[in-house]
């Protein structure tokens, strides 16, 4: 192998290794700067109310005038996730789930209790993900998950779908927060108002979750104020930008403002992709287990093992009250033989 080829291979390998160590693919265009709030707000409600009053309640839209963010989208660049909470003492890369040599928790970002909890999680390793149990990503992870989104805006509600886990956000326009259930929700309770083509969203009552697997957890006091807009880039393509401020007095020393972006995916539309119901419980054969040291881990069921779910065939767990040889129960007639 020539020196040139060896050097090129090393360079290629370096590029690949570097890419592997990024939590998200880099934005295809530079990430916009996160816009910090105009002033320091003690709570997310104070922040949202300030914006609502500043914009005098915003712009009423009709079905004709409402900004259309149609089509399929996927998450693009962001400056959130573990880069908020971890640093490398030697300038080395930080892995997607916070792994890496000499990677430590940044001081002064998390409250002492949540910094300790994050260290506890890191000491256990990142061999488990709560989504394994078919939980939706929820907020704030909804913003970072890599898969497909749909954004449907109407004058009274916006419905934003994440195909991972049937994880829909509903934003109630020019309405008050409501919680008649007395609980928290994965996506929280969101209200918002339009200012021309910009949507400002306030989300509360969020079930504690994560920014991503391997990040610090959020608490049940976590709330967000988001400013969404679609912008047209110099190359003529569009992107959605979410400038979001995280408030969480239990986990964050100070509120944090970051930016997430989403890019259109006409390529997926051209290939016939349509967002379907995410049948996690009927398709997923991974499950929570504990290793010999008692650490949470993940395991994988094979056909014939207890609890195995057959993603295409006639599953006894789905049809326990039907004859096992009943014709026409497979999901697809081209895959007619059950895996047993």
């Amino acid at each position: 192998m020539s020196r040139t080829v060896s050097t090129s291979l090393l360079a290629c390998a370096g590029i690949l290794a570097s890419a592997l160590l990024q939590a998200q693919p880099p934005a295809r265009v530079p990430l916009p700067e996160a816009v910090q709030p105009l002033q320091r707000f003690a709570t997310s409600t104070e922040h949202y109310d300030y914006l609502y009053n500043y914009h005098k309640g915003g712009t009423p839209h009709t079905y004709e005038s409402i900004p259309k963010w149609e089509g399929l989208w996927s998450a693009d660049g962001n400056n959130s996730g573990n880069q908020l909470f971890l640093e490398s003492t030697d300038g080395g890369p930080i892995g997607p789930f916070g792994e890496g040599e000499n990677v430590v928790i940044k001081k002064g970002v998390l409250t002492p209790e949540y910094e300790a909890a994050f260290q506890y999680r890191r000491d256990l390793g990142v061999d488990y993900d709560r989504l394994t149990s078919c939980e939706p990503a929820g907020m704030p992870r909804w913003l970072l998950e890599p898969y497909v989104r749909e954004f449907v805006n109407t004058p009274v509600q916006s419905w934003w779908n994440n195909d991972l886990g049937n994880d829909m956000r509903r934003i109630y326009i020019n309405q008050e927060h409501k919680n008649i259930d007395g609980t928290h929700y994965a996506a929280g309770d969101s209200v918002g108002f339009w200012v021309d083509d910009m949507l400002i969203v306030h989300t509360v009552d969020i079930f504690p979750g994560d920014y991503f697997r391997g990040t610090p957890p959020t608490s049940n006091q976590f709330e967000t104020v988001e400013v969404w807009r679609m912008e047209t880039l110099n190359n003529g393509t569009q992107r959605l930008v979410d400038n979001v401020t995280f408030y969480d007095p239990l986990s964050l020393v100070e509120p944090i403002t970051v930016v997430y972006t989403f890019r259109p995916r006409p390529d997926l539309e051209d290939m016939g992709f349509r967002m379907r119901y995410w049948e996690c419980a009927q398709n997923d054969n991974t499950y929570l287990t504990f290793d010999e040291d008692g650490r949470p881990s993940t395991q994988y069921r094979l056909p014939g093992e207890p609890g195995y779910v057959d993603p295409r065939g006639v599953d006894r767990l789905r049809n326990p009250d039907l004859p096992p040889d009943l014709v026409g129960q497979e999901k697809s007639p081209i895959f007619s033989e059950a895996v047993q």
Partner: protein
Amino acid sequence: MKTTNCIIALGVMLMAVMDSAVAHHSFAMFDRDREELLSGTVVRWAFNSPHIALYMETEDGTLYSFEGAAPPSLLSRSPSMNGFTFQPGQAVQVVYCPLHDGRPGGAVGYIIDAEGVFYRPNDGGCGPSAEWEQWVGMGYTSRAQAEAAQ
């Protein structure tokens, strides 16, 4: 030319990996340091979320189960895959990272069809070596074997 091919191959791999390094569960059960090659026939190809699955029977009658990435990311790979890409009875080879505990299964790296086309339905559970395009032709059945011979 070799260098160019390498760069192209790694470029394709890079794009795939960037979409695939994340998944809805961890990969603790897979041995990502090992890469094995198996031949067999497709029993089922399940193109569904949260992860695609390939079931393959080997010549000795063992049923292997392989898990890969979520469908949206497979659509944008090169070559693209959908729910009809692999059919029951089709002869394939699979490069995979086996389960740590030795059961017949693992995380899929490549699926290679009878024409020698390399499909890459993997997620972060298995990041197979780019050299497999050469190793398969040289008769190697594991990365360890190929590396030991070189």
